[in-house]
């Protein structure tokens, strides 16, 4: 007899569950995004050097905009590439 208590353990409840996204700038109180820190900005960019969308990074709109400007500034200063393959 499979009671409800047994069934509860037959499947791992953590499988397939999505971890809640959050804005790291809000969560950790980061107010300023440095354009001179390419290692940090690389987290918001894909392998081709394109900006990652908000739905993946989880940034709030305000900080997504600031990330975008910071990445663009870094590109201008040749800290990040405009176009590449295999950035990471």
């Amino acid at each position, binding site marked *: *007899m499979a*009671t409800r*208590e*047994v069934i*509860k*353990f*037959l*499947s*791992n409840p953590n*499988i397939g569950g999505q*971890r809640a996204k959050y804005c790291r700038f809000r969560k*950790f109180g980061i*107010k*300023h995004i*440095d*354009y*001179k*820190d*390419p*290692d*940090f900005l690389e*987290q918001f960019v894909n392998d081709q050097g394109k900006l990652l969308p908000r739905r993946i990074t989880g940034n709030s709109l305000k900080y997504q905009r600031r990330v975008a400007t910071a990445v663009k*500034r870094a*590109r*201008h*200063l*040749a*800290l*990040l*590439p*405009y176009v*590449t393959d295999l950035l990471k």
Partner: protein
Amino acid sequence: MRNYEVTFIVDPTLSNDEIKSAAKKYVDMIKKDGKIIHIDEMGSRQLAYPIKRRNTGIYYSVEFEVDNGVIIDPMELAMRRDEALLRFLTVKLDKYGVKYNEDKRAGKIGKVVKKKKKVEEDNSHQRRKKKKKKKPAQPPQQQGQKQQAAPAKAASPKEAPAKKEEAPKKDAPANDAGTPPTS
């Protein structure tokens, strides 16, 4: 008074003196009208893409305070005309930017700290995952080699029997009491 920050890349093929004089030229220009807060010599860096056929550049970043950007136009004009510079970027700093630079100079923000924060977060998730996986994975091997399935699968049967033992016990007293609710 406003805070600005100008970052520029000097041609690395010049001699050391020329590089220093190129940087000093703009520092002096700023000093005339404004106040220099900090000069950050970031040194030679690999460029992400070639500029004027150069693959490296010498980075300077100067933070300064000026009345409403009086000197910025003439400074940028001079920079545009300067052959020794590969790139430049002038940015207005808001109060958070000023504080960020202060903290960075005080060593509160340094790259290492930032990385650690991020790495710790990422690792903490990974570690938790690993721990969860490792713990169930090890005991089955000690008990016997019957179950060589994935650790996640191994976890559920291991916990399930324990609950199964408890479940009948709970049912039994309920039946004994003479009040079977749903069965």
